[in-house]
């Protein structure tokens, strides 16, 4: 199969014109992966191409890159699934991380964020002999997070990290959840309180699902972050706008069946948070003028009592 690949290159040792797109053409096995093609380039066409790769079997996490704008592990990305013969594929380094050379990015910030969440077991005491007793179910549940190979794809395409690099990020938060839900760890509350912090913690995620989409191992970091939010609320960590927001939402839906937007905005700002409330005024005014202000008496779903009953039933179940 004839393949054409554009690679975004960067050579830090060039004084000017140090980044460019270089095209490579080759004829390779039809089932080849993007990594097969890149290795072919490196071995037979252009020995200056820089990229990281090792296992070729999607377990080491080295070969994360952006292919046609989306983060992928190139060792398991088949070319024929992306382009037809004659079309060109674009390969770029992962996003949200500085480029060292060509497709090689600086991963130190990624691992520094991992370290921030204390990613090691912290039991209060070790068993006197033998192992901790734990159910197989509890260990199997952790397999989802343990499958994380620290490839960085989630971080590459995270839309919050694009605008704010103080966010701890999907990978570190998914790793943190692995310890929060490990029955042998005794720092659950401390971990949740740390992660619940407004500065760059679990509430900074915008639920855009990029990390879920790109994760090659099914870790689904955003879902892990949502788990953490739920658990944080359960243990009583409530002093966040995130909590206010979701709490107000729940109250509104339970009461009316539908969303009371004005009240939501109000309560999410925090009913005692004067600066935030004042902040809402210009927006509210503009909406009022344009006739977009949600009604003071919100729309209700017909028969909304039923939803209230459902909510009650669910609460009793827990």
């Amino acid at each position: 199969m004839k393949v054409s690949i554009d690679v975004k290159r960067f050579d830090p040792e060039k004084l000017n014109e140090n980044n460019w797109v270089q095209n490579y053409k080759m004829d390779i096995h039809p089932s080849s992966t993007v990594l097969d093609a890149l290795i072919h380039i490196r071995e037979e066409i252009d020995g200056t191409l820089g990229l990281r790769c090792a296992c070729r079997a999607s377990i080491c996490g080295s070969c994360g890159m952006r292919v046609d704008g989306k983060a992928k592990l190139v060792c398991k990305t088949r070319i024929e699934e992306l382009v037809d013969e004659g079309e060109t594929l674009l390969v770029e380094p992962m996003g949200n991380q500085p480029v060292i050379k060509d497709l090689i990015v600086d991963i130190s910030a990624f691992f520094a964020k991992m370290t921030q969440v204390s990613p090691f077991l912290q039991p209060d005491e070790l068993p006197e002999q033998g192992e901790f007793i734990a159910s197989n179910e509890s260990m199997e549940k952790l397999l989802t997070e343990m499958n994380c190979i620290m490839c960085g794809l989630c971080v590459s395409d995270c839309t919050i990290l694009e605008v704010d690099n103080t966010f701890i990020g999907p990978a570190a938060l998914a790793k943190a959840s692995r310890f929060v839900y490990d029955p042998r760890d005794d720092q659950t509350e401390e971990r949740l309180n740390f992660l619940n912090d407004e500065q760059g913690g679990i509430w900074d995620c915008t639920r855009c699902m990029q990390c879920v989409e790109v994760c090659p191992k099914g870790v689904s970091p955003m879902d892990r972050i949502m788990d953490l939010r739920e658990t944080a609320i359960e243990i009583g960590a409530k002093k966040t706008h995130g909590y206010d927001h979701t709490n107000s939402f729940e109250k509104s839906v339970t009461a009316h069946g539908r969303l009371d937007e004005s009240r939501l905005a109000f309560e999410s700002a925090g009913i005692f948070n004067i600066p935030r409330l004042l902040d809402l005024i210009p927006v509210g005014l503009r909406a009022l003028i344009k006739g977009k202000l949600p009604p003071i008496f919100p729309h209700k779903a017909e028969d909304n009592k039923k939803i209230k009953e459902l909510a009650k039933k669910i609460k009793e179940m827990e």
Partner: protein
Amino acid sequence: MYDHDLLIVGAGLAGLRCAVEAQKLGLKVAVITKVHPVRSHSNAAQGGINAPLTDRGDDWKGHALDTIKGSDYLADQDAVEIMSQEAGEAVLELERMGVIFSRGDDGKLGTRRFGGQKVARTFFVGAITGSALLHVLYEQSLKMGLQVYEEWFVTSLIKHDGAVRGVVALDLKTGELESITAKSVVIAAGGAGRVFEPSTNALICTGDGLSLAWNNGAGLMDMEMIQYHPTTLARTGILLSEAARGEGAYLLNSEGDRFMEKYAPDYMELASRDVVSRSEQTEINEGRGIDGNVLLDLRHLGKEFIETRLGYLQEVSVEFLGIDMAEKPVPIRPGMHYIMGGIKTDVDGETGVPGLYAAGECANVSVHGANRLGANSLLDTVVFGRRSAEKASDYVKSVPNSVIPTEKYVKRDLELIKNIMDSDGKYRVSEVRNKMATAMTKGIGVFRDQESMEYAKKIVDQTKIDYRDSIKIENKGKVYNTDLLFALELGNMIDCAESIVHGALTRKESRGAHFRTDIPGRNDDEWLKHTLIYKGLEGEIKIETPDVTITEWEPIERVY
């Protein structure tokens, strides 16, 4: 110029386990690694880690015998005894560090069966045991604030006044060469799978540690013992864990028969790996294969079972071959996987060269002898990784604080690098390597004979010349120059290939993985010995054949 008590080359399981122990013992320790620790090839181990837990009715001697029989009686039995005795605590320690081992109904560690053993004593995490262990050890290294020289490539050891006192290394990110001194060095840089083509090993497994040790006076033992794993995926060569067979998968030929009945009627698919690989290769050679493969059948295990206990295998099969293991059997064939041979060490990692230790796949204690049992490698790394730390911590007490004149060593390596960078021959490094690796697989394969081994030697000799005279380096830069890196790695691979070929030609019998069709029997009278290859100062090869240490288990016929 930096200074440590202990510098560990390699951040895989053996290296990190050694580091964690060394730090606990109060040593100033650092790890130097050419890839980030979690990228180390330990993460590719899938199936599990063996341990006889004596408090639960298992018998360490049972594991020892299985291991020794598996090794075709080439393993040094005193070393195996230690490994079997310490295995239980080693695994429990890992669990206490946080590994999410599978459990039985009683909430204690659960087991699966594995090759070469009748008792189920393999502890596991799905089909990602290696990765799970490596990540937990990495977590522990973060917890203790381990210093890591990340993405630094060791170009040579510093041997000063007869003792190893550090390394010279290339910082890949800047291209700068520096010296790092230490009172002792542990080599834990893994195997040399890339000396063969194809191989299940990652591209980084280039025998760097083996070469470093060999060039500084250590001996490489039983290098001819190359393990071909029975179940590597067709076309891509990716590993499919023995765990599949441990959980009950069948091996079928083109006629749909479970052919292992003919070769190992007792253990069937769970015979030792060399036996299974040879059986498969025989079926293929005799026309009962399918396009050079046989079939691994898991259909009867059911989809849910496969996806929980063997999830990663299903992932690989679906992603790389488009085959759902619950629906269709998977085409597989033997592939080069592991090197039982390695740097000769005693049970404490001592190589005989003062200040130099080795542990993990690059070392040969010998516990695996002529064939390694599945799930014994992970065990080997943590037991002997830990023991090396203990021994080294003792040794460093006797090493005086002195300043080593490192400039000359750095200068020597700068010359070496300059020569490589200036080379403008006609072959790319990859071309030279591919030619050698293909020849090695052909000549030192599942079956070999005098002719094939001499062919391999001939190609290796030619490769040495090509490497010296005819390679070209296209990348003339300093930052992350992989062209240069590959050239340096190729040098190491050639050393490994050379020792393998010499070992293979030396052993005049068939034992374990070294199966000579021209001398097919095992010869305990003359060959209950190791092959031990040394490289002299002028590059001359010296071969010795020390006896195997027998304690309790006299060699008998090996039948599965």
